[in-house]
């Protein structure tokens, strides 16, 4: 579904991604772990098409299409979704209006009819419940004045509504207490399906206690230096990143 080969990217003059390879198949969950500054968030943003990153080499194909050639909205239309580490506040932009615009833009791009107001509301209410979010959230401006936990839950709520093929969760656990983490993880797990893949970017192993990955990759200095099963995350938790990044440096 997603094939990343030798991806290199700069921010300004600084090379952040340095030959990253990753293959994600349908329905798989891949965790990407790594110390601060290893390039995890850059990788997530490059996949979603954020400006300010210059891709200097390599390729990314998604469902056979050259992803790097597409605008951010076109990537979303193909079924890519990024859950932001820092969801952006949009003062004055009503949440319901925003969600409806997003869902209908994606449906239109797929040649599906737009949802009418009633079916849309019904669908929203169902998904809200899963994430223990209050109806009142829909009347507020997008993320505006939301607590940290509400923002993260709102990201997963949007994911539930937009039903992407590939979701990238960028440090979704950061800033969440254990109860909020569990709610977010339950929301994510409810969305697991053979047709939906996920890339879970995280610094800590604890999220992976709740969202169990099929594969774990360690990112350091802009590339994946070790891949394994979920046990690799536990090993990292125990020994720290120094164990593996130091090993690489020594090699």
């Amino acid at each position: 579904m997603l094939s990343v080969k030798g991806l290199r990217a700069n921010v300004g003059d600084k090379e952040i991604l340095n030959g990253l390879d990753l293959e994600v198949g349908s329905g798989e969950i891949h965790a990407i772990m790594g110390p601060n500054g290893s390039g995890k968030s850059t990788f997530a943003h490059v996949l979603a098409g954020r400006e300010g990153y210059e891709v200097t080499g390599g390729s990314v194909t998604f469902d056979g299409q050259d992803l790097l050639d597409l605008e951010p909205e076109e990537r979303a239309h193909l079924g890519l979704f990024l859950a932001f580490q820092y969801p952006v506040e949009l003062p004055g932009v009503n949440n319901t209006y925003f969600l409806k615009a997003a869902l209908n833009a994606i449906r239109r791009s797929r040649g599906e009819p737009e949802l009418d107001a009633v079916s849309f509301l019904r669908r929203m209410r169902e998904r809200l419940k899963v994430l223990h979010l209050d109806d009142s959230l829909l009347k507020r401006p997008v993320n505006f004045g939301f607590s940290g936990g509400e923002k993260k839950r709102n990201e997963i709520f949007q994911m539930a509504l937009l039903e992407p093929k590939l979701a990238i969760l960028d440090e979704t656990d950061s800033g969440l207490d254990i109860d909020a983490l569990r709610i977010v993880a339950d929301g994510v797990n409810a969305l697991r399906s053979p047709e939906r893949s996920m890339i879970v970017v995280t610094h800590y192993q604890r999220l992976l206690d709740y969202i169990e990955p099929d594969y774990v990759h360690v990112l350091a200095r802009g590339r994946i230096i070790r891949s394994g099963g979920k046990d690799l995350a536990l090993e990292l938790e125990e020994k720290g990143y120094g164990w593996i990044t130091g090993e690489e440096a020594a090699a």
Partner: protein
Amino acid sequence: MSGPTETGTALGFEGWLPSADTAPGLDWLESLRASARSRVRDQGVPTNKQEAWRYTSVKRLLEQGFVPAEDAITALQPEDIEDVLVPGLDTHRVVVVNGRYLPSLSSLGDLPSGVRIGGLRQILESDPDALRERLNGVAGEDQPLFAALNMAGLDDGLVVLMDRGASLERPIELIHLSVGMDEPRVAQPRHIVALEDGAQATLIERYVSLGESLYCTNSVLELSIGRDARLKHDRIQSESPNAFHITGLYLSLGQASRYQGVNVGLGGAWARNDLTVRFAGEHAECDLQGLYLAGNGQLMDYHLDVVHGIPHCSSRENFKGILYGKGRAVFDGRVYVAKDAQKTDAAMSNRNLILSEGAEVDAKPQLEINADDVKCSHGTTVGQIEPEMLFYLRSRGITAPVARRMLCLGFAGEILDLLSSDALREQVAEQVGQRLENAVLD
């Protein structure tokens, strides 16, 4: 007196004065008008050496060679104005066409006792004494050029007189409709709204036009709000793209009175707004909100002069602008706090969103504080759409032009949400949306 040599119009703005006097012959009124005429002559044509005209030239205005709109347009039928109504808005409606009150198009409905609504000329003829203290009562005689012109060339306008404690459930709606004539015309309506102590009302003032004609409206609005009285005031200027619009708003606030004004400027080629606020009693609150859009060929110019001459009053001035294409705006706001006006609470803000390289705004908020126990602030921002916001929307599948429009509407929403009725808010939001859709946002 500076001569209008650059314009080829030897008379300058004196050409706006009516050739024959059509106003009722009242001695006191004659004296007001004579004094206004001499102020017009004394002031001459404004130049950019005057602080109030530093950023805005009147050259374009003068070049049009406007002549007074002397005759009332009586041929209009109610169906002709259907397009300019707000669907679902139930009001005491007064229609003024090219400066003249037209009873045939107005629908005042039942008015409770203590409330008079009518045309300025009508009341000058039937009960001139009711207006004797009111005309220039708030504006004063020491008026700047365009307000003096308005008095000297006095047409007609809306009069609302509310006795002590009177109140209206439904809003009063003033529709100022402009209809293009062969020759470019200037209409100079003067509106008088006076709320005695404890009176309460909502006023919706709408400046609209039929077609895209070229004309000028030079309006003056005198609002006097008595002790404990309340006025909500929405003002929507959505005139023809070729229109010239001038407003002088004069507001006087009595003790513990409250005023909330929402000014929306969408239309016109050249729009100058002078908003003047004076406090006449303690503990009064003035809330002035504004939203303006300016695209190609448009100038939106706002001058605020808020004088806190009395202690314990508060004022808010919050204006937002969206500029695109080669649109231009000026925000020149002054809040003055006199030496004795302790415990003044004033906050002025002007935020601008610039969508194109060719757009421009001159923002000059000023605080002049002469008292030592006050809470005053001011702030200005001029910025573009935040790239993070745009990316967030696009990452959800929303295309860039739609995302930009959503963000602009969100920016405007803070002001539009304050409009007094849902029906009006919907219409104005729709107009703003359309304007943004037509704007080149890419």
